């Protein structure tokens, strides 16, 4: 059952990701990205990371992608035209993609043996530390410094947004 859902949602995630690239219309691209985010959330859920799954939906599929859709609707962006691609992209695009995937795959299998075929198998339901309590404890003890640095980064981003927006008004 778990394996079936894993395969189903992994397939949906990949299909939506491909669709993000292939779709002509920006709204369709954005909605495909929502599909990818949502199926990633299901994959997190299958692995036992409940809290991350919910936050993934709330933050990425809910808030950020709604903003994307909002901006696309506001600008009323039309279909992108397929003209104007350079001949290098047309000829070397697919081979370069294949090469990139190959290099990335090789690098991952070499440097991170925990994800390769020799790694111990992942069993669904093994991991139980995905609740809000465990995440909170980890964030405020082990990962306190990255957490605080991230919050400062977000504060800087908010200030930057305010500065940029104020220029328009003055």
């Amino acid at each position, binding site marked *: 059952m778990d394996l079936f859902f894993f395969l189903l949602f992994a397939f949906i995630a990949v299909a939506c990701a491909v669709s993000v690239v292939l779709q002509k219309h920006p709204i369709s691209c954005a909605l495909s990205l929502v599909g990818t985010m949502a199926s990633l959330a299901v994959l997190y859920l299958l692995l036992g990371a409940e809290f991350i799954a919910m936050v993934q939906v709330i933050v990425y599929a809910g808030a950020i992608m709604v*903003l994307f859709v909002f901006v696309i609707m506001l600008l009323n962006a039309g279909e992108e035209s397929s003209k104007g691609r350079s001949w290098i992209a047309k000829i070397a695009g697919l081979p370069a993609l294949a090469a990139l995937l190959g290099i990335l795959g090789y690098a991952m299998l070499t440097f991170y043996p925990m994800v390769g075929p020799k790694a111990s198998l992942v069993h669904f339901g093994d991991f139980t530390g995905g609740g809000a309590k465990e995440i909170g404890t980890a964030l405020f003890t082990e990962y306190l410094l990255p957490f605080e640095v991230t919050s400062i980064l977000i504060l800087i981003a908010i200030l930057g947004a305010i500065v940029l927006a104020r220029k328009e008004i003055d």
Partner: protein
Amino acid sequence: MEFLIITSIKLALILFVFMTTLAYLQWVERKVIAHVQVRMGPSRVGPHGLLQPLADVIKLITKEGVLPPHVNTFYYLAAPFLSVFFALISISIIPFGTGVEIPAFHMGGATYGPYKTMFELADANMGILLVLAISSMGVYGIALAGWSSNNKYALMGGLRSSAQMISYELPMSLAIAAPLLSIGSLNLRQISDAQAGYSLGVIPHWAIFAFPAPQFFSFIIFMIAAFAETNRIPFDLPEAENELVAGFHVEYSSMTFASFFMAEYANMVTVCSIATLLFLGGWQPLWPAAYGSNFVAPLIFAGAGAICMLHGMNPARPFDRITLPVFGVIFFGLAGLMAFPPTVPILMPMFWFLGKVGFLLFVFIWIRATLPRFRYDQLMGFAWKFLFPVALANLLITGFLVALVS
């Protein structure tokens, strides 16, 4: 197998009851607003217009669904489906009572049971977050409807809706977080159970009365944000009829049009259930059973039955001679069921929960009949300049008080 059968039965029951509720909520809304405005409201179809929802549904189903030529067909048809999907899915995790236990019984030589089941379809560990996640996805239905209609007014409605929903999600989440600090669980059932008990013997431990930090302000903030999240007056800017004709659903007709209304009412029920579970103690009664809170429900229903009987004796319309006694008997039957000892532990929590949800729904309708609509810049300014800071301060004070006590 047993799980599948029980779940299917629950699913069918919940779907039937919920759909009927949605249809009748429309009737209640029209009736309440009419009486607030000193009118009669629907009164032609059936006694007191009680069959009006049925007539509306038949009308909407049999109407021709017009597909305008200028729309983006795929998203135009997908939008109402998405709205209803996300609105209905969140009801599956709302526990609307404690649960039911059927002892083992013999039938046809075989023994069945004992069966024990909760009232909600799924007892999700992250229940409250799941509701937030689903409601944050719900905006796509309205935004897409507005965009795909290829109509200026609809687009404005869709834009307003997405901006409004993102803005009000923040104070809503902060208001939800505050009571969770002292409750310490994200599971809706545990949240409700944590509010059991009474201080000084009579004051219930509901989050709005809770000891270290009463969550009264979070409750108010949550309800204000809920009005915006469900696109209800005074925040129904996405469909403001005197600015935008009908906003995001201006190009829709027949069932696609009706499905947006279904989604709106379903969202209202969900939000009121969450408010009840988080702030009003779920199915915990207002005062302890030792002081007779179990007799409230039978008394109310018996009173309703007596009123029906009384009016049936002295009918104002010819049909009342038949219909009112029938309703009276039904109410008396319900009263008897509520007082019948074996069913009390099942029905009492349900009565209190549904009573509170019903009261909050009434508040929604009452406010719709009372308040005018906000202007759009007022709406946004209110969310960001007032509601958000207040919710943040409330969360900080609650956290401080909870830390101080524990």
